[in-house]
């Protein structure tokens, strides 16, 4: 990742950075004055960079408790004339949608940008939802960059367009743009900020009569923007003019098309849309009018294809359509230049090297390649908590509604994972129809403040007989260790003040205590709240190493070890592995890798033969 100083140095420079960092630079060059966001892959690095820069550049930025809070915070700044921005991952849109849809009616004043990171292929997500539809459903303009440089330029431009039309501007990135790395041209920027001033107006009250009046204004605003795009330079036509074929694309798919045409050695005109909502109807119709075939290349939903096909019908032009409807690309997962080359070849021809031999070899080895899912880090407190819990849950045949965070990696007891904050509410629902089994919910601190709070209030209000387990690892670990309100608000106090009668806390590494508490909690009519508080082991370990502190690691005695696999196979601490050689009884034994053991002690507590103990001090 680029050095922070380089990221906001106020000079012209070519800097090697991530797409997300380029977006952050775009926001800085545009003079963003207030930034608020909730983390989520693949958007987080943009927010991290802007928040870090804010301290140096003297503007306000925060990690908010959730996307809706972040959006609303930024929106207020915008309607006070300041340039404001928020960022989230695609599913974050669902959380802020309530504010977004009405804010779109009311419009903005200072430039307002909503960065959304979509994740085709679900690299780090629970679905592949496609944010381009916001342009239709929420009626907000959507810009779609196709590389890191454009990501920076479009972010900057988004502020300008937003101010020009008093509209919220969505910048839609995808994982392959946000996490692409390339050299990006940075420009100089102004550092003076405007003073905020709120001009009172009925426009900002979404009461029915006012909203009814605002909606036609929004519709005509989108019409105006539509007229404007064709002059904006955002739609680009490349390639030789040709009446046979034309390709329409946008975003990362454009990059795949460029590569694919090179591979196929074909020159076919391409219309690349920089703005995907509203659609640049003028340029699209001009491009397509004389063509017999129009090919759509886009990831996931047939967004351009469906909308532009409708446009063709409305305007009486009838090219043959190739795209998702003809199956040349799929409606799921990401594309790459090969997939696009294959798709294009099926329509326009061209030569494409066979990969038959490789595919054959691949088939022969697929079953052999082991599945390697991500795991809890060595010493992870979640793993410790789940170990004890899983026994209690299994013994009582409980139902376990988990949530979204590092704890989603639990290999043992999780029954459901839906979306952030769903664990507690689903446990409530389970408890209403399943009477003979204990119901558990599991939630992390960040998720607790994100959407767990309201669910817990509901559970208390309706006396849900559930056991809520909060793992407070002091940060938002999964998305890169961001801070959250647990730093200053005690979750135990929150639960108590909400009216939860049974609130206990314990250290998840302390199994003896944990066992007693879980059994005890089950005797109580719920909701109960059990808080396991322990700093994220990974972050703790890094802090220790950085500050040169010694870590007291554990060690396994080869002669005592009976190779039962409790620590390796069942507990699955990644720091433990099977020995290469054998002990004096000719048996393999388990070994701890001292370079990654965090010294959590858990393996020593679960070893049935007490083979594991603190390592004697040797100099590393």
């Amino acid at each position: 990742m680029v050095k922070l100083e380089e990221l906001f140095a106020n000079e012209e420079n070519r800097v090697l950075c991530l797409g997300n960092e380029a977006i952050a630079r775009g926001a800085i060059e545009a003079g963003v004055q207030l930034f608020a966001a909730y983390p989520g892959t693949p958007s987080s690095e943009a927010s991290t960079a802007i928040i870090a820069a804010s301290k140096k550049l003297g503007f306000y930025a925060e990690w908010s408790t959730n996307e809706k809070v972040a959006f609303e915070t930024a929106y207020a700044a915008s309607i006070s004339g300041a340039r404001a921005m928020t960022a989230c991952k695609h599913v974050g849109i669902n959380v802020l949608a309530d504010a977004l849809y009405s804010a779109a009616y009311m419009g903005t004043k200072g430039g307002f940008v909503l960065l959304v990171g979509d994740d085709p292929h679900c690299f780090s997500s629970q679905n592949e939802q496609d944010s381009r539809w916001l342009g239709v459903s929420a009626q907000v303009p959507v810009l779609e960059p196709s590389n890191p440089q454009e990501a920076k330029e479009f972010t900057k431009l988004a502020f300008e367009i937003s101010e020009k039309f008093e509209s919220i501007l969505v910048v839609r990135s995808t994982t392959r743009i946000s996490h692409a790395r390339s050299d990006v041209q940075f420009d100089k920027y102004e550092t003076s900020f405007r003073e905020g001033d709120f001009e009172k107006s009925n426009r900002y009250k979404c009461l029915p009569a006012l909203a009814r009046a605002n909606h036609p204004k929004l519709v005509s605003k989108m019409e105006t923007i539509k007229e404007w795009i064709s002059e904006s330079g955002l739609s680009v036509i490349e390639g030789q003019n040709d009446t046979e074929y034309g390709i329409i694309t946008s975003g990362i798919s454009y990059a795949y098309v460029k590569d694919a045409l090179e591979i196929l050695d074909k020159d076919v005109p391409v219309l690349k849309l920089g703005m995907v909502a509203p659609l640049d109807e003028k340029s699209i119709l001009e491009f397509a009018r004389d063509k017999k075939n129009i090919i759509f290349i886009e990831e996931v939903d047939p967004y351009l294809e469906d909308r532009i096909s409708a446009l063709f019908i409305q305007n009486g032009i009838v090219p043959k359509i190739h795209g998702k409807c003809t199956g040349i690309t799929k409606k799921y997962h990401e594309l790459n230049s090969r997939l696009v080359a294959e798709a294009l070849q099926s329509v326009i021809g061209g030569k494409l090297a066979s990969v038959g031999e490789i595919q054959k070899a691949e088939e022969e080895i697929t079953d052999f390649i082991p599945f390697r899912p991500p795991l809890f880090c060595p010493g992870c407190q979640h793993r410790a908590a789940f170990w004890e819990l899983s026994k209690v849950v299994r013994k009582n045949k409980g139902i376990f509604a988990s949530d979204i965070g590092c704890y989603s990696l639990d290999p043992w007891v999780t029954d459901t994972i839906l979306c952030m904050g769903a664990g507690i509410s689903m446990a409530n629902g389970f408890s209403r129809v399943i009477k003979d089994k204990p119901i558990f919910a599991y939630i992390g601190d960040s998720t607790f403040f994100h959407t767990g709070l309201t669910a817990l209030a509901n559970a208390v209000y309706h006396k849900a007989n559930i056991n809520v387990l909060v793992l407070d690892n002091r940060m938002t670990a999964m998305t890169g260790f961001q801070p959250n309100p647990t730093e200053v608000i005690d979750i135990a106090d929150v639960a108590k003040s909400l009216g939860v009668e049974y609130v206990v806390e314990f250290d998840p590494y302390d199994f003896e205590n944990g066992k007693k508490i879980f059994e005890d909690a089950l005797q109580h009519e719920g909701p109960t709240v059990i808080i396991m508080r322990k700093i994220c082991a990974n972050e703790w370990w890094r802090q220790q190493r950085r500050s040169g502190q010694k870590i007291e690691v554990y060690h396994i005695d080869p002669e005592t070890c009976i190779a039962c696999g409790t620590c390796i196979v069942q507990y699955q601490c990644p720091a433990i592995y099977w020995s290469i050689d054998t002990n004096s009884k000719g048996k393999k034994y388990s070994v701890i890798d001292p370079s990654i053991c965090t010294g959590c002690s858990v393996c020593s507590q679960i070893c049935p033969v007490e083979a594991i103990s603190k390592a004697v001090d040797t100099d590393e």
Partner: protein
Amino acid sequence: MSKTYKMIVCGVGGQGILTITDIIVIAARKKGLHVLGSEVHGMAQKGGSVVTNLKIGEKLHSPTNPIGTCEVLVGLEQNESLRYMKFLKPRGIAITSNTVLFPISWKKDKKAADNAKEKIEENITKFDVKLVMIKAENLAIEAGLALTQNIVLLGALSQVEEFPLTEDELRDALKQRVPAKYVEQNLKAFELGIKTVKNL
């Protein structure tokens, strides 16, 4: 250079995959070459399978390298090298550490693990590639820091014909990228990587 040089670096989260790409990218930039990479952030980093795409050249568009296109694969773990072998083009070069990290499915059965381990190389040879197997762990330990296995492989990579960056260019970038207090061990690891390939 007119042709685009495509490569991938793979391994298990935590093995220093991003460091290798960082160094290459720094060196390429210094030389005035364009680079485009695609990295993995987030979930998979926790001990999962990780792959990074890299392109060096003039006309760079998409950030990923599809099946059958890479000149070189640098693998920090044998299973992972095998997993991504399909991305190499025919007769591409696979520089692989002989390290085997057991995924949990293998840890369950000690014997199966040993058997499987023997078969990895055999499976790699099903692909039409040039395999360069390197005892990266031993060499890294010899260099004085077990964590420098990635740098050993980088040394080996510098010897690949047509690789657009020279030994010196990589060495400079390495010094810039690794923590100051470990530069010495890293340079040693780099040299050892060069040497093993020369001795092949």
